[in-house]
Every structure is written in structure tokens, then in C-alpha cells.
């Protein structure tokens, strides 16, 4: 079986950090949450997902058309999910910096899930004999 860079583990770790940050933020509602730890988790999460994207961009002979097809549809589905979560926070009077952080977390969440789905679909559609 062909070896791939650790795009899926990096993306799942990024997703896990966003989920932890989200739990921290949600546990403070309706009070103002302290933002240091969630912001740090979000920054690390962003670095992980960007690293995954960078590693993926260097792949040769990867099933890119299938990747983008899966990514587009998954992104549509998870933008709707993320939008609904964002709507709930706005409805609960989250404003200013906490809202901005929630939006960044939701963007990373939607990208993480779409990326891991599309990468998994494409990796098993790629030619098995090509090298990384």
C-alpha cells in the first residue's frame, strides 16, 4: 500500500483542538469566557491544518479531481453545520472578540472535516504505484 504524509492524523488533531476550545468556550456561556487558552488552541489547530495542506500540496499522482469533488460537497454540508452553531452563539448574545474567535474556530472546523473526508476518499482513489 502506498505511503502518504500524515495529512489525516494532522487534520484530526486540529479538529480535536478546535473541539476542546469549543467546549471551553461553551462551558462559560452565558458569561464572558477567558480567551487565552481557546485562542492558543485555535492557533495550534490552524498550524496543524495548514501543515496538512502543505504536505498534501506536494503530493504527485494524487486523485485531485476526486479530492476536490468530495471537498466541495463536504464543505457545503459542514458550512451549513458550522453556520448553525454560529447562529446559536450570535442568538445567545456572544459579541466582540469571543464571537470572532468562535467564527475562526468554526471556519477551521468546516475545513478540517471536509479535508479529512476528501483526503481519505482521494487517497484510496490514487494510483497505488506512485511515490510521495
Amino acid at each position, binding site marked *: 500500500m502506498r505511503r502518504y504524509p500524515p495529512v*489525516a492524523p494532522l*487534520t*484530526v488533531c486540529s*479538529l*480535536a483542538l478546535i*473541539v*476542546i476550545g*469549543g*467546549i471551553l468556550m*461553551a*462551558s462559560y*456561556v*452565558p*458569561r464572558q469566557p477567558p480567551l487565552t487558552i481557546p485562542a492558543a488552541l485555535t492557533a495550534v489547530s490552524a498550524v496543524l491544518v495548514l501543515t496538512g495542506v502543505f504536505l498534501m500540496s506536494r503530493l504527485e499522482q494524487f486523485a485531485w479531481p*476526486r479530492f476536490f469533488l*468530495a471537498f466541495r*460537497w*463536504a464543505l457545503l*454540508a459542514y458550512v*451549513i*453545520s458550522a453556520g*448553525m*452553531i454560529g*447562529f*446559536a452563539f450570535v*442568538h*445567545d448574545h456572544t459579541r466582540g472578540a469571543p464571537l470572532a474567535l468562535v467564527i475562526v474556530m468554526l471556519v477551521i472546523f468546516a475545513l*478540517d*472535516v471536509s479535508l*479529512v*473526508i476528501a*483526503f*481519505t*476518499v482521494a487517497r*484510496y*482513489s490514487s494510483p497505488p504505484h506512485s511515490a510521495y
Partner: protein
Amino acid sequence: MTDVERAQAQTAEAVAAPPRPQVVPLRGLPIVAAVVVFVIVSIAGNWLWALTFCHVVGGALWTAIDLFVGLIVGPILGRMSIAARAEFTARFMPKMVLLMPTLVLMTLAAGFQLAIKQGNLLPGNPNHAWLVASFCVVGVMAVIALGVLEPANITVLVEMRKQQPDGAVIALLMRRFIYTAGITGLMQVATLIIMTRVATQ
């Protein structure tokens, strides 16, 4: 013939005859859209009955399906022949692709609003710690479901749509599906304990 070759041959044979599965069943999309709109309206209107309905119905279905699939269907599936497993998967997985994310969204969005509306998230409330514990349980389930289970599920369906599906890939991903469904099933037991505590405090 090695195990992998036998699995490939069996799976190719099994999926050659039945219709190729649709990854997302399009007929289900209007129902999903209706559920999402209903949840949004319930949240926007602070509609207590509708929020309770969405949380209880969504949560009951989510928990029951996770437990049933993880602890009953999963182990049975693991003991079936590759050919039977492939045929079951082709009919079962597309429904799960639509059903589970919709139930999860409905349960969590309505539950969070209910918790706020009823003051359960306030620091002095005896339910606060239990709700944070439930966030953690849901968080673990979300990472497993979104990061492992769903990509495997969709990849199996995409693989089955190919002219010559790779049996080894399907077997590998189905094993992942069976294990992770078992883990989320067990996590649902924790959810049941937490939610019954919250309801009776």
C-alpha cells in the same frame, strides 16, 4: 489465494450485480432541510416545546442508533462474509451519511439552547458540571465520528461505485467503521448516565 485476494474477489463479485450505491441519497435531502429549518426556527423563537422535542427525539434516536449499530450490528457485520458485508454496506451506509449528522445537529443545537434557557449552564447550577462532562463526551464522539467514521463511510461508498472495487480497501475501512462505531456506542452509555442525572437533579 491469499486472504486479501480472496476478499477482493468476493467483494468484486458481491458488488458487481447490485446497483452501485448513491453516496448521498438525494431523496432524503428535503427532509434534512426541513429538520434544519425547524431547529433554526425553534432557536430563533426560543420555542420551549420545539427545543425539547428536537433535543429529546434527536437524542433518543442518536443514542439508540449508536448503541444498536455499535454493539449489535457492528459485531454481527464483523462476522459476516465479505460479500454479505459489502451488500449490507451498500444499502446501509448511504442512509447513515444523511441520518446521523442531522440527528447530531438537531440534538446538540436544541440541547445547548435548552441548557441556556433553563439556567443549567450558570456556574452555581448543580447541573453545570454534568453538562460540561456531557460536552466532553460529545467532543470525543464528534472527533471519532467526523475524523474517522464518516471519512471511512464515504470512502467505502465511493469505492463501491467503481467498476472494480478494491476488496482490501473496503475490508480495511469497514474494520475501522466497526471499531469506531463500538467506541461511540459505549460513549453513549456515558451520555445516558449524564442526561438522566441532569433530568433528575
